[in-house]
């Protein structure tokens, strides 16, 4: 089933408590997906890059080597970043099995991400000047408190409460997906894609990498591929309606825009609220009402809808 949500503030430079708002929205839709919760949050542009890396997940209670393995991964990742010329400013190890690195870099980002991912068990969840992806098992309040997301001040965000149907319950298969290797692009999806294997083979031949077995990962990589060929976000999304089969509502975010697309059957829900101050959208109105606590005018966009807002 899954619950998806997005919020973008329209009042220019003013920064908002986007982490807290997204947590409220996702917690209100916990019944749609209790398996894992994920966030893609955007902070106002910084001059450096932020990389979120997921380290190993423990192999059950008998994994005595786990803490040592995490420590080794951390130091290897740091070494590799430095060896490619990245100037590391800060390393934050909020959660046990994840790390957030802030750094400056002038070189090739794909090369950097590939080299970090080459550390066994490591996965780059997000990389960009403003994007930060956080995902973990549990409901929104659990993840938000583990990663201190309620303090996150930013401009826009998307989130996902997952009920696993097509692949495992673990962090790798949780949303949102980063459009590797494109900085600052992320996707959340509610639905099932039926031509997943076809697209996966096609995109793998084109040199893209996949970190999970989740069908939704295709959307992020597909959009990244289209945008790399010069399409705008909106053009890429319109094209996806014809090229991706199945049922879906997905939300895609970039550094300064938030877009939503619905399949041509209108099979998956989406409720939209637009005002001068903000645009909020979610699988259920009850989520929007946690951010805008009054009677509001909302509607369901129709089948085949593609809409994009910029901040």
């Amino acid at each position, binding site marked *: 089933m899954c619950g998806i949500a997005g919020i973008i503030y329209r009042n220019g430079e003013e920064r908002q408590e986007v982490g807290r708002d997204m947590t409220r929205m996702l917690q209100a839709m916990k019944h749609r997906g209790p398996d894992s919760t994920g966030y893609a949050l955007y902070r106002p542009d910084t001059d450096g890059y932020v990389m979120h890396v997921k380290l190993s997940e423990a192999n059950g209670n008998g994994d005595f080597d786990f803490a040592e393995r995490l420590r080794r991964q951390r130091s290897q990742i740091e070494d590799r970043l430095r060896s490619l010329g990245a100037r590391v400013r800060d390393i934050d190890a909020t959660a046990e099995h994840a790390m957030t690195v802030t750094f400056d870099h002038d070189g090739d980002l794909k090369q950097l991400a590939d080299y970090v991912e080459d550390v066994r068990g490591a996965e780059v969840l997000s990389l960009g000047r403003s994007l930060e992806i956080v995902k973990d098992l549990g409901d929104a309040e659990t993840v938000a408190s583990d990663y201190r997301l309620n303090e996150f001040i930013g401009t826009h965000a998307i989130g996902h409460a997952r009920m696993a149907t097509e692949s495992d319950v673990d962090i790798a298969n949780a949303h949102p997906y980063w459009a590797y290797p494109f900085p600052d692009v992320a996707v959340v999806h509610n639905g099932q894609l039926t031509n997943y294997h076809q697209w996966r083979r096609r995109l793998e031949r084109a040199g893209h990498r996949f970190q999970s077995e989740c069908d939704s990962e295709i959307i992020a990589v597909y959009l990244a591929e289209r945008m790399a060929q010069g399409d705008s976000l909106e053009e890429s999304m319109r094209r996806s309606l014809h090229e991706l089969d199945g049922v879906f509502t997905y939300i895609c975010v970039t550094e300064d825009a938030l877009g939503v697309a619905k399949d*041509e*059957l*209108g*099979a998956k*829900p989406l*409720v939209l609220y637009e005002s001068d101050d903000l645009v909020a959208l979610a699988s*259920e*109105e*009850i989520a*929007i*009402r946690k951010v805008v606590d009054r*009677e*509001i*005018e*909302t*509607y*369901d966009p*129709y*089948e085949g809808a593609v809409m994009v807002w910029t901040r």
Partner: protein
Amino acid sequence: MDAVGATYDARGLVELDGTIPQISEIDGERAVLDARDLSTRKINAELRWLLYEQGVKDVTILNPSARHSLGVGILTRCRITFEGSLGYFGVGLIDGPEVQINGRVGWSVAENMMSGVVVIESNAGSLAGAALRGGDLVVKGQVGARTGIDQKGGTILVLGSAGSMTGFMMQRGRQIICGDVGPGLGDSMYDGTIYVGGKVASLGIDCVEGEWTDADTEYIERKFRIYGLGSPPELKKFVCGKKLYNYDSLEPSERKLVL
């Protein structure tokens, strides 16, 4: 209370948590319930208590706050007003109530209504009036996809537009859509009638334009008059083409005799 601790509500149906908040302001046959701090289960329990046990005939519910499954399974004649929006499955499985919703509703409003009236002042999500069997569902805004899927009776009246597959697998009853409709109108409908005022993106399989009669005019004018909607727009009528009727009413043994 029986051996396992379950209690039963006024309809004889099992109630897992039987305590009723009893916070409504009751004034004779009227009552006002502020639902802000109640769970869905408590709101519905309170509503049933008012209607079945306190002799209340007219309930106003404040602050429904877009919650799901409110006012479901009410099987008595009464008047219910929601001052705000409902989530999914609002007033489903009802038989008798006259419901006024001063807000928007999510998916599957008035699903399987047997009789009664549901009037929605704003928009409705997909599957409005799914499997409707009787009564009138009036939406003054727009509706989502698959409106009146599997409809088996009653009337769905929409002043705005409707999404794809409107009247999908409809079996009886009528729909009046004053605005545009999405692709696949009346797909695989067995019977019933759909009136459309705006543009039809495309007709579904075996849905064809029907012949207009005086009875159609009388029926539409009557419905618009009842709900004070002014004069109806110019409408086109769509029915089942019955080209997919590849079966007949004969039993196999009877068919043998005919052959």
